[in-house]
């Protein structure tokens, strides 16, 4: 009895192996051209979009997804990937598009110029800016805190258990672009960079500080929905000039204003049909993105509900994105 059962198991195993070999073929298998196993289920056309962890990016994806599904008849899968690995996934075709990129010159050179596996998808229409921010309630009481030269004077007020004897500069996710450690060193600031480790953790902490009207200094960026909840004022760092951030060790200037970019997988850009054409034309404004982001993050609507509401009220805008 046991014998036959095991023999059966063995033959099933051989069959499975043969089947796998048959399915995958015996020649070369280029894994940079394999799509997600969940794609194209039930004979539908699927687009896979990369969602980064911040809510602004979720808003882009939510609206694009809503229109692709309801207006163009696609099925959309979303995958959350950090910024740099997303480039790699995009080049391999694991995702079809990134809708909001904050500038990665090294990856652009490698994947667009050298390998040709990624194509530019044009401006998103939103301009991003990174900076150091203090809560407006604190800036109103101490107007001179908004100049970096006075920061050392306030180091004592920004102290926390984590920062030890120094003031705390709260940084967010390790995946974000940041020069803060170099800036603190090069500007001789009496501050300690404390990495929240993820944006979620950073937002939670900022909200807690704000609830008690405590002072804090944080790395933050625009556009971001949190400004609507916790008004913050930017601290002026030495002005940005072209190339002043070339050497990451010696940076001593502010962050630039970056027009955010879209990128498409090269094969998708060529053969993606309506979806690719739509994503290339997708272009909105900072305010629009903020509206949707706020619905998601603050009113806790699901991204699809939020997108649905926005789409209902802004038909004139999105009509122009649809391929004619």
């Amino acid at each position, binding site marked *: 009895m046991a014998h036959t059962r095991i023999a059966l198991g063995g033959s099933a195993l051989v069959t499975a192996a043969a089947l796998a070999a048959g399915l995958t073929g015996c020649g070369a298998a280029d894994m940079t051209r*394999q799509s*997600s196993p969940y794609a194209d289920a039930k004979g539908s056309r699927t687009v896979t979009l990369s969602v980064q962890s911040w809510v602004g990016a979720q808003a882009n994806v939510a609206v694009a997804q809503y229109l692709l599904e309801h207006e163009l008849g696609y099925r959309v899968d979303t995958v959350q990937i*950090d910024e740099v690995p997303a480039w790699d996934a995009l080049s391999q075709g694991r995702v079809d598009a990134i809708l909001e990129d904050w500038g990665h010159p090294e990856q652009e050179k490698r994947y667009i110029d050298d390998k040709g596996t990624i194509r530019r998808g044009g401006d998103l229409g939103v301009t991003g800016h990174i900076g150091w921010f203090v809560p407006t309630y604190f800036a109103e009481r101490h107007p001179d805190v908004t100049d970096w030269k006075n920061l050392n004077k306030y180091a004592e007020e920004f102290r926390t258990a984590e920062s030890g004897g120094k003031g705390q500069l709260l940084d967010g996710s390790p995946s974000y672009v940041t020069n803060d450690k170099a800036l603190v060193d090069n500007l001789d600031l009496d501050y300690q960079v404390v990495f929240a*480790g993820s944006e979620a953790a950073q937002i939670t902490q900022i909200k807690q500080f704000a609830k008690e009207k405590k002072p804090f200094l944080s790395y933050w960026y625009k556009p971001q929905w949190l400004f609507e909840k916790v008004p913050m004022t930017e601290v002026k760092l030495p002005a940005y000039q072209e190339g002043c951030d070339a050497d990451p060790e010696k940076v001593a200037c502010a962050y630039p204003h970056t027009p955010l970019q879209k990128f498409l997988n090269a094969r998708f850009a060529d053969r993606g049909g309506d979806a690719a054409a739509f994503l290339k034309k997708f272009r909105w404004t900072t305010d629009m993105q903020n509206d949707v982001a706020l619905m998601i993050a603050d009113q806790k609507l699901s991204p699809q509900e939020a997108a649905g509401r926005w789409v209902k009220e802004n038909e004139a805008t999105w009509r122009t994105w649809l391929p004619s």
Partner: protein
Amino acid sequence: MTATVTSAPSRPPTASDTASDTAPGALRALARHRGRLIGAGVAVALVLGAVLLGGGSWPASLAVDLSGPLERTSDWIVDNRDGHPLFLYFLGHVSNVVVVSVRAVYLLLLALGWAGVTAAAGLVAWRVAGLRLALTSVAAFGACGLLGMWVPTMQTLALMVVAVAASVLLGGLLGLAAGLSDRMNRILRPVLDTMQVLPAFAYLLPVVLVFGIGVPAAVLATVVYAAPPMARLTALGLRGADAGVMEAAASLGATGRQRLLTARLPLARKELLLGVNQSIMMALGMAVIASVIGAGGLGDRVYQALASVDVGAALAAGVPIVLLAIVLDRVTAAAGERIGTPPAPRSRLGWTLALVTTAVVAVAGRLTDRLTWPDAWTVDTAEPVNSAVDWMTAHLYSGVPLVGGTADWAGRFTTWVLNPLRDGLQWLPWWAVLLTVGALALFIGTWRTAVTAVLAMAAIGVLGVWDPALDTLSQVLAAVAVTLLLGFALGIAAARSTRLGRALRPVLDVFQTMPQFVYLIPVVALFGVGRAPAVAAAVVYALPAVVRITAQGVRGVDPAAMESSRSLGATGRQQLFQVQLPLARPALLLAVNQGVVLVLAVVVIGGLVGGGALGYDAVFGLAQGDLATGLVAGAAIVCLGLMLDRVTQPTQRRDLAGKGA
């Protein structure tokens, strides 16, 4: 050998000591005064070290900078992934097979429709484990649909089926090799032991680099994590085969192959099924962590929800994982228990009935066009959960009269416990740290564990991450102390009161299967950003295992010993401290060991909430695709895990149930 080495320092001579009368007297004296000898040795070495080596952290001259070669490796892989034969003819096929199989399972599940899948789950549970579990299974799948998580649940299920199948196959083969050959067993055992203590986070980066973000990488990382328990249990089952039965089979003229197939494997069925059960639990534990590298499904929903600080949505996606885990665990455990009992009459009929019913339900679903879970049948649970969390943070965070808020506790814990501990460890001269590690390991374990522990610690120094590693270590130590304090208290209470024990069980079950990520956001809301929330999450995660092992150990104390102490007039308190606890010492040591391993796994993930140190480096490496930082941090975490495991490892190999994933 082991008998002499493990003898407690001040133990009177016993049978085993007198039995080794042939050994030189000096050796025996040495063994008896082991504790004192280790102490003296350490003292001498401390003085010598202070004179010869001085203080300070790990010297730069003894460290190796790996960033250059690692960056070159990373670039080479990215550039050659679409051209080199290794990728085209080997790894590409591996990846392809994974994609094809996951897709096949996924399409099958979708084709069955929600009704078909639920019916199949219920019927299989009914055949294997009876009516009660069948109802549980149906309810669990129904709940997944109600929470609006049907499609992600199917994606996760498809991935799990493939990952568990691969783990069982791979683990089974390794276990077979180790079970049949002594040499393979000697080679594999330390490897498997080590794999079981590694935090899953450390695996991710190398897998991602080779396979890219996506399902293949996620499946492979899961297999690496879930295969070891299967291998260990298979080997154990094969090695434990009754010698009498084997002898009988041999005397009947069975060949080696026949003996394996007809005697050894059937005798090991129980262990094999336990191995499958463990593999499933480990794989599910990995479901959320793997979403960081693109596993999709439920894990990805948890991860996305946490990004927008939406605990309610994260919980809605986390609950199906727990439900899947509970159903699969109970069903496989029931299957294991039934082994050995004769198959019920008409069992084939029952299976046929189950198959036919499933087919009918699936076809009915298809005909009525009800394959996807109806949107109207979903319940929004996120809202109430979020308001509960908001209330908690609003009222507990600070300004609570008398005790202060949680944020104040966190601040005090950081200032008065974590900071001094970290600074103290980092202030210690490097050789003193090595010495302490070695002495502790020698004291609790054997010279072998001591050597491994010291080498692992030294490797951290060589990798050039001495200071961050000590920072992580300080968090682990603080969390372990809190965990043990709470865990022992709760465990003892649960062992002494049946009612409390019964009330605790489901709570422990849920906490143990809950994905670690779900804990991270509430702890930030309560304790702010930093090392304190990382420690808190680690304590919550490790507590169930410690409570459970402690309770089992205390409860398992020989009733005769309890009875005799009672007849001698011992009070309840005396009984506890003088009989139960000393007799439960092995279990308590095991609890310490498990606690340490589990705490490390979460302290590392604490990098996501400001824990800093090695965890942050690992997260940074993953997020930036920076192999140099990420892999070095990963390796250091592995070494730290190895060191902590060996230092706390009693000579008896610990429970095979492994860590509760």
